């Protein structure tokens, strides 16, 4: 299932004009995406610029990487795949000098290297662009790009003029709409990502590693990134591309390598393979999104949102969710989706409009009120909003329903364990013990704990905000199945997502948001990808919604 990128990128007036130029330069990439895997890239035949041989990395109690081989050729995009915990990030950290391997060799341009720290690796031409954003928000774009390598005049003084000139050169190649002296804290997530990429260009890079670069980008913002990657390739830079998204990988890469449980399972040419094969390499089985299994029986309306507004955030939002129904909310990052959810959940004060829950108008003054009234929110940011990372699994699981597992204020540890065991089994959470700190779990298992936490409050309405962001394919499909089962058992479910396949695969109805407004509402089974893309990029304003449900 590949989302069509063609339409919106050509008509997008919201995007900066210079990204239009870059699209026309690299129009082949658009064609590729539009036609799915039809024109996959052929492997580049050249001597590798970088080789990793027999890399082994041990952490206390764990062999994170076992005898892994990997290489990158100049000008190629080499995708690295694997489930969470497979060792991708560790391998890249070894490559970038953040970790040192216990065994094995790193050969860069024919020379064996031993990187002691990231700066060392960077100077040698290996740059890692991080999964988590690693910017200093109180500093300017220029200072962030040159973080750790500010141009200096004698006496350790910063050479501001050179800094400015160098930054402008880099910004010109990135073609992004911000200035060298903008504070990074004031930029959007996508623009911050561009600043990160700008960093890679400071040293003439030989190998650039992208670790989940699109995790926080919307479909709409991705082409800019693809263009940057293409232009790097044209300069002969080798790219390592880590992602969970198959469509991206098949679109961008020349070759694909797969890791499983710290072991190297193989490398294939993108042109010679397909998603099924790669998935099998990753998880040992093939996997399919099951559209047929969507819930089909709906009860009465559980949630009705009428003309809800929060000043300067979103405006006049109306929709409803019925019992047993999954409603998808689709839109770009920053369109106001999470904010709508937070308002329903009592975390924001609406400036106008009302929320009706189970037939009653509710005015929540805090999240606590919302929880008491039966609303559950699985938040967007698992680590910051969803979990207490330093707490164990059980305690996180019961955090939202403490009064249910206590009497007279005292915890009943037997009941707590029972709650934990119930969801532990039901959701197949992989942890050695309930005492395990959730910070030590993989993203998928963490997300299951958050969902378990909310299921135990027995909510009337379950809101899931980006439920599968940064989660490996296996866990993702498990969570999808879970959500559908929940709806079938009578829950009213609202799913917010930036991933079109997810929205299409789960939702009975889809609400599209653009720039703080609901632009359209679609039937989840009959909507086309084009319609959705138009609705979330502000082009569907004139065209009437295709289907009005409810």
């Amino acid at each position, binding site marked *: 299932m590949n989302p069509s990128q063609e339409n919106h990128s050509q008509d997008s007036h919201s995007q900066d004009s210079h990204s239009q130029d870059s699209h026309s330069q690299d129009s082949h990439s658009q064609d590729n995406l539009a036609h799915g895997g039809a024109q996959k890239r052929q492997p580049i035949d050249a001597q590798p610029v970088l080789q990793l041989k027999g890399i082994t990395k041990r952490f206390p109690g764990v062999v994170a990487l076992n005898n892994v081989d990997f290489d990158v050729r100049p000008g190629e995009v080499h995708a690295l795949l694997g489930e969470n915990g497979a060792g991708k990030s560790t391998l890249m950290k070894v490559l970038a000098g953040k970790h040192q391997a216990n065994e094995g060799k790193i050969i860069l341009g024919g020379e064996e290297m031993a990187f002691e720290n990231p700066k060392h690796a*960077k100077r040698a031409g290996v740059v890692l662009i*991080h999964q988590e954003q690693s*910017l200093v928000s*109180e500093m300017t774009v220029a*200072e962030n790009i040159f973080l750790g390598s*500010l141009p*200096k005049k004698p006496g*350790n003084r910063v050479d501001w003029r050179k800094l400015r000139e160098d930054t402008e050169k880099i910004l010109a190649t990135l073609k992004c709409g911000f200035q060298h002296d903008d504070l990074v804290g004031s930029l959007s997530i996508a623009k911050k990502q561009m600043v990160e990429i700008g960093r890679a260009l400071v040293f003439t890079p030989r190998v650039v590693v992208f670790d989940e670069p699109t995790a926080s980008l919307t479909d709409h913002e991705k082409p800019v990134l693809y263009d940057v990657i293409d232009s790097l390739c044209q300069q002969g830079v080798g790219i390592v591309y880590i992602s969970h998204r198959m469509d991206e990988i098949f679109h961008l890469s020349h070759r694909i390598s797969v890791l499983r449980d710290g072991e190297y399972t193989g490398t294939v040419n993108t042109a010679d393979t397909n998603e099924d094969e790669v998935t099998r390499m990753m998880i040992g089985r093939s996997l399919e999104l099951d559209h047929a299994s969507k819930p089909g029986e709906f009860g009465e309306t559980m949630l009705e949102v009428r003309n809800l507004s929060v000043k300067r955030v979103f405006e006049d939002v109306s929709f409803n969710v019925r019992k047993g129904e999954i409603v998808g909310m689709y839109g770009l990052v920053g369109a106001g989706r999470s904010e709508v959810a937070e308002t329903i959940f009592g975390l*924001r004060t609406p400036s106008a409009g009302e929320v009706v829950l189970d037939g009653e108008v509710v005015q929540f003054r805090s999240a606590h009120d919302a929880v008491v009234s039966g609303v559950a929110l699985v938040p967007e940011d698992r680590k910051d909003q969803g979990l207490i990372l330093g707490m164990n699994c059980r305690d996180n699981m019961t955090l939202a329903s403490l009064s249910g597992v206590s009497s007279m204020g005292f915890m009943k540890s037997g009941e707590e364990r029972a709650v934990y065991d119930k969801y532990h089994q039901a959701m197949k959470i992989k942890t050695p013990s309930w005492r395990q700190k959730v910070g030590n779990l993989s993203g998928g298992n963490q997300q299951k704990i958050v969902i378990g936490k909310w299921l135990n409050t027995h909510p009337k309405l379950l809101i899931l905000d980006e439920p599968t962001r940064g989660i490996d394919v296996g866990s993702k499909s498990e969570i999808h199945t879970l959500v559908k089962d929940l709806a079938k058992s009578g829950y009213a479910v609202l799913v917010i997502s930036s991933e079109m396949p997810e929205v299409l695969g789960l939702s009975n109805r889809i609400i599209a948001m653009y720039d703080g407004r609901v632009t359209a509402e679609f039937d989840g089974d009959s909507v086309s990808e084009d319609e959705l893309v138009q609705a979330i990029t502000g082009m569907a304003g004139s065209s009437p919604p295709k289907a009005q449900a409810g």
Partner: protein
Amino acid sequence: MTSLKGFFRGKTSIQPIWIFVIAIFIFFSFMSEYFLSLGNITNILVQTSTIGLIALGMTLVMINGNIDLSVGATLGLAASLAVGLQEISMTLAILAALGSGMLLGAINGLIVWKTGVNAFIVTLGAMLGVRGLIFLYTGEESFYSMNFAFSDFGASTIGPIPVLAIIFLLCTLVMHLVLTRTGHGRNTFAVGGNPEASIDAGIRLGRHMMINFIIVGFFAALAGVLLASQMGAATPNLGRDYELWTITAVVLGGTKLTGGFGSITGTLGGVLAIGILRNGMNLMQVPAFYVLVILGAILISVLIIDKKLNAPSTKEVRI
């Protein structure tokens, strides 16, 4: 964003503390006939120079994401050394005093760096321990300088301006330049703002932490030496509670306790605010008991106003 907020934010913002400084300056000018005179203003500068000098170093340490509670004790030790060792040689005494401050700073920095333990814990220990060292060294006695040249220096002036005030202002200028213009200064912001990112960018976290702790140790020691020269003596209890007033001044100046944000100009404003308040209330003969309450109340009010100005109201989630 309202226009008032815009006034205090953005690239050409005015630091709120300076508005406050100007306001109380005008207020006291009207309330006391003695306030607005060159003599009184230089007095304020001399009196604030002690806390002020420490605050310069503390600003860097706090932007760096750390804190140093041991500065008061460091000041006391340096003062005792500067007076106590004068029998041997004046130069040696002053060098030893400044050296002791830098050494203590280095020890604090090293422990914070190597163990990754909260600087609050490490320096709270040092605060107690260094005070113990002072008592051990001085035998609980005050030291008195036989050399009047030493105390004359503390009282000397260039033109109408006391030397101590000039030293303080010069140091302020230098530290402002260090913070805004040098690689070390910018990296200090980076380390405080996002330590992970800084490590990834190859910035040597430990080195900058060490340097900043050494800087604050140096300034605490310098303040101690200058204070000793004002008194021609050193007492073992010197500098008690100074760490609290220093931190207060730095926070009033807008430096964030969480690191990554702050400025020397703000700190100067914070230091002056406290100095002017104390001086002005003295001149107005506000009873000492009430001064404590007023200072506390003003500090909390400034925090509340700062919160209101910086809170992006509707954009923020209610937590």
